[in-house]
């Protein structure tokens, strides 16, 4: 049960971060940690469907975007933010279940390509229907409290970690991993694959929708199509792979490393950081398909060569 231990450690660390705003930390520090926390939630949500159930969803941004869209609209019109976020998550999940059944008729790379197309269709549609920038009302900006966003992000990151911990130790989580390893053999062992894949997608997109709502609450002004951008999908994918796909701690470690590295590289080399991340991703997939988690295991010499890791 190393998962339980990791979960405890991560939750303790998140608990400690609750004291950061009390220490009169500068806003840029809080913003930076906020980004890491948002990234943890987003990476963890992608990890559920791709890492555990083995379904590489390249349209993940669509669900982040839907959550952001509805939460923003409701919140600006006076709905409490938590309610607005839950509504956004419900919309994302409803959409996921609607497209899930046909999308899961596609397997492997075809599922990945199909979901990528879906995300792009949604982004383009939103861009055309809502071309105007969304800015908070002046009164809201005047009363903007970074701490509120920070604590919400902290809570959401904790929720995502708890969700994955519970899932990983559950019957459903085991069934998902069986599907990831070999769907046909899982079916032959009694696992109803479609239902479990839909469950994974629903859980994953609910978290992504919540993360989108948090983004809508945090950002003062942005184009409504921005949260639908493919980089939200690929950020989540990179973080998860860098850390260790299909593990609890992988996406957390990956999110921290990714955000830190991205800030550092973006300051020095501006857009070159994209090239660097691309190269890093290829190197990891080829040399270390289990990411940081696998690297640590190797370094400890406890485990030799691991078996095939899921995509």
């Amino acid at each position, binding site marked *: 049960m190393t998962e339980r231990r990791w979960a405890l450690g991560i939750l303790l660390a998140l608990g400690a971060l609750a004291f950061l705003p009390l220490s009169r930390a500068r806003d840029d520090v809080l913003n930076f940690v906020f980004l890491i926390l948002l990234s943890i939630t987003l990476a963890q949500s992608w990890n559920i469907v791709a890492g555990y159930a083995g379904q590489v969803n390249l349209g993940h941004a669509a669900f982040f975007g839907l959550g952001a869209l509805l939460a923003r609209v409701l919140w600006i019109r006076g709905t409490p933010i938590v309610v607005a976020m839950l509504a956004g998550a419900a919309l994302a999940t409803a959409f996921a279940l609607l497209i899930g059944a046909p999308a899961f008729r596609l397997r492997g790379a075809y599922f990945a390509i199909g979901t990528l197309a879906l995300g792009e269709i949604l982004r383009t549609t939103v861009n055309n229907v809502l071309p105007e920038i969304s800015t908070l009302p002046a009164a809201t900006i005047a009363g903007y409290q970074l701490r509120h966003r920070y604590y919400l992000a902290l809570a959401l990151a904790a929720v995502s970690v708890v969700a994955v911990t519970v899932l990983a130790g559950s019957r459903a989580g085991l069934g998902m991993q*069986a599907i990831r390893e070999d769907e046909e053999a899982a079916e032959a*062992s009694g696992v109803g694959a479609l239902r479990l894949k839909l469950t994974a997608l629903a859980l994953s997109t609910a978290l992504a929708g919540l993360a989108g709502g948090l983004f809508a609450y945090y950002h003062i002004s942005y184009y409504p199509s921005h949260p639908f951008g493919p980089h939200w999908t690929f950020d989540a994918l990179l973080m998860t792979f860098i850390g260790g796909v299909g593990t609890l701690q992988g996406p957390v470690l990956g999110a921290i490393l990714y955000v830190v590295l991205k800030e550092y590289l973006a300051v020095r080399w501006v857009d070159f950081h994209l090239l660097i991340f691309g190269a890093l991703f290829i190197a990891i997939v080829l040399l270390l398909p289990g990411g940081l988690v696998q690297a640590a295991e190797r370094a400890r010499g406890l485990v030799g060569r691991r078996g095939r890791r899921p995509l």
Partner: protein
Amino acid sequence: MPLLEVDRVSKGFGGVLAVSGVSFSVAAGELVGIMGPNGSGKTTLFNLIAGALAPDGGRIRLHGRDIAGLAPHRICARGIARTFQLVRPFAGLSALDNVLVGRLYGRAAGGRAAAVAEAERLLVLVGLDGRAATPAARLTLIDRKRLELARALATSPELLLLDEFMAGLNPAETATAMTLVRRLVADGLTVLMVEHIVWALMDLARRILVLSAGEKIAEGPPQAVAADPNVVDVYLGGAPARA
């Protein structure tokens, strides 16, 4: 009523009839063998019974209820488990988790603790004691076969389909596997097995079906089947097996 009835089942792939009008039945507690040259439709027949493929025609009944065309996990829930010709354990999962999947998703009831205890018992039964934590990918071929058997048994089947369980094993391992299969049948399991190792099949099965080019060309006790001119022709060449 027989446990399994296969009634004039057919399956074609793009004009080629892989299984053509095959009928047979298996009584509870029997061990029935299926043999036939490569491409004679043995694995296709298994896939039809286990639900991996839907038949084009004919009926497959378990306890008299039609199961043809049901999804594999529903057929598993009715009481049929299988192993694969090329072993397919869940490579990234531990041996124990492999078996737990079968236990938690099969027909067995009971909580998690009982499931773990039962999965551990099955690992011992198939000879994988001490390997519970080992990832399936790091097991040897015979151990992966054992693991697949334990996973299938964990679903609490009434009928077990073994697809070339002995293939790739050395003589000593084959003997071990045969002992294991005998033990399962002695414990009341019904087994239908496809096997290329003819001597093993002759030794284990009371009744053997022979397939050739998708059709059943012989059925009977091992000695009778071995002496059947059609079977001899199919295996040793000569005149076409059927007019």
